């Protein structure tokens, strides 16, 4: 423990500060933004070299909440990896959970019944709404508009109530099972989703009216942190941040999973890739998600909510207490005693922030030999240091919230 990181970055900047002498006698300064700055919405640090209020150079330090998920996964049966995935992008945990189950089901060759697929789509789209609501309303807070945030957060709360009805948890959901869902849509859940679909559009419309055309908000966002499509692709951008730059790449369209091909929806794209476009794309995606949920609810197929795979799907709890066979299967599955082929699979889903990929190498044992998460935040956050160059400090804050960098996903 000889030297801390911050100091070495400052040393690098010390040279630059010495070299440059401004005519008016002012000099460059170093600003430590983070790791626990309230405006960064997560634990990441940026050491900025500033000329007055303008950023000249930046250096990110990440890893403050690195929990070694990839290493932990190498020691855990598949069932125990889901709780790890929902701690990545904790604003849209169900998407992560479903992405993981879809990967495992692909490996094991499990065919999921239509009804379960539709319920998953509903949950994933609710998660996308929750994720984008957080991002956009916080962006408004960062530009000084608090009301919209408090208003739409009521509806994030309603989404969490639906999660609660489906899996018992709110934030870190651990939802779903190998081969389907752990329970069917209950009457309460059904009613809550219907109420949400009825009430939310009016509220969200009002939020848009409050914020989108607000002069101050527009001035703070337009032409701030623009990134070209070529650059964004080279930096590995996916999701709303890439679509804001004008590329219509969406995993739901490219490689449909969980019956996304059954739904009619648009992929909104922006033009300039700046903060305002990112905001607009997320807003438009919320409307599309509402549309998808509506369709899924209207066309919800009847049938079982999980595949008939006793080797992988936990038996009902009542049976476990009454029935020897069920108890044995319960024990086997919980201990990871399931037949697993030797194979490698890559599967990706459209997460809240882009392509969320799972690369699983299985050697036939009960734990993955190697599990790699393609975490969109980790991949695109590296562009941040380049994007902030030449901008004002206050713009950097706005850019950071519009990129929607989630610390859990960044550090895994």
């Amino acid at each position, binding site marked *: 423990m000889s030297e801390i990181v911050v100091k070495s970055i400052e040393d690098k900047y010390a040279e630059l500060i010495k070299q440059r002498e401004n005519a008016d006698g002012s000099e460059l300064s170093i600003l430590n933004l983070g790791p626990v700055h309230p405006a960064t919405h997560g634990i990441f640090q940026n050491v900025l070299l500033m000329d007055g209020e303008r950023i000249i150079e930046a250096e990110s330090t990440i890893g403050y909440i690195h929990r070694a998920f990839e290493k932990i996964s190498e020691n855990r049966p598949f069932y125990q990896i889901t709780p790890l995935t929902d701690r990545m992008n904790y604003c849209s945990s169900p998407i992560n959970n479903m992405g993981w189950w879809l990967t495992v089901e692909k490996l094991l060759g499990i065919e999921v019944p239509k009804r379960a697929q539709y319920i998953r789509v509903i949950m994933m789209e609710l998660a996308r709404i929750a994720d984008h609501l957080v991002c956009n309303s916080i962006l408004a807070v960062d530009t000084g508009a608090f009301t919209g945030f408090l208003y739409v957060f009521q509806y994030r709360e309603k989404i969490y109530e639906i999660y609660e009805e489906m899996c018992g948890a709110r934030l870190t959901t651990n939802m779903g099972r190998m081969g389907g869902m752990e329970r069917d849509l209950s009457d309460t859940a059904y009613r809550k989703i219907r109420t949400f679909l009825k009430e939310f559009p009016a509220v969200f419309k009002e939020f848009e009216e409050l914020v989108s055309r607000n002069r101050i908000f527009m001035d703070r966002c337009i032409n701030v942190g623009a990134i070209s499509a070529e650059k964004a692709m080279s930096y590995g951008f996916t999701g709303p941040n890439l679509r804001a730059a004008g590329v219509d790449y969406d995993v739901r369209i490219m490689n449909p999973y969980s019956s996304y091909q059954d739904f009619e929806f648009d992929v909104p794209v922006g033009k300039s890739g700046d903060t305002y476009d990112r905001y607009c794309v997320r807003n438009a995606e919320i409307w599309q998600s509402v549309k998808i949920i509506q369709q899924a609810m209207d066309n919800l197929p009847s049938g079982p909510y999980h595949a008939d795979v006793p080797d992988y799907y936990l038996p009902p709890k009542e049976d476990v207490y009454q029935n020897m066979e069920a108890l044995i299967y319960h024990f086997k599955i919980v201990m990871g005693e399931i037949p697993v082929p*030797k194979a*490698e699979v*890559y599967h*990706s889903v459209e997460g809240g922030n882009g392509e969320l990929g799972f*690369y699983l190498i299985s050697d036939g044992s009960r734990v993955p030999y*190697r599990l790699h998460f*393609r975490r969109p935040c*980790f*991949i695109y956050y590296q562009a941040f240091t380049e994007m902030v160059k030449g901008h004002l400090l206050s713009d950097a804050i706005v850019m950071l919230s519009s990129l929607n960098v989630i610390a859990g996903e960044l550090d895994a």
Partner: protein
Amino acid sequence: MSLTNEIVKQKVEEKFGESVKAFTEADFGLLTFEVDRAKAIDLMQFLRDDETLRFNFLTTMCGVHYPDNEIERQFAVVYHMHNWLDNVRIRFKAFLNGENPEVESATRVFLTANWMEREGYDFYGINFIGHPDLRRILNMDEMVSFPMRKQFPLEDGGRTDKDDRYFGREPQNSNLN
């Protein structure tokens, strides 16, 4: 005419000959192959720049450790690329030396490789030659080991209560049932 795995394979073999091998589509049609480590980044550039192949996106890359392999194949770097125009994905692997794992950096082809390679270095100690800033990224700078290598077990190796044999199972699960 859309791009198929056969065309990719043919093109790549034509250009790289002996350096590419072990083609398979075992992962649900995803073309997977191995490439000599010396040619890995040339291959990536070829895949990106060739007019038919157009693999414009480096989806992800990661390291893997295979301590039981022969010395020349103890580490692997796995690259996933995606052609968005024809919607074709591929995966290729470069196996590295176990004593001295090094491979050329992909940063000259894709900017996104920067942090991915730093992660590969941080977790496995793979040396990416030509990387502009190869430092640890997620772990602290003072760390001396490369934690994702298999010689660092997560739990105390002396623990016996989690021995698989107590549960009456073979080391391999694939033959179960």
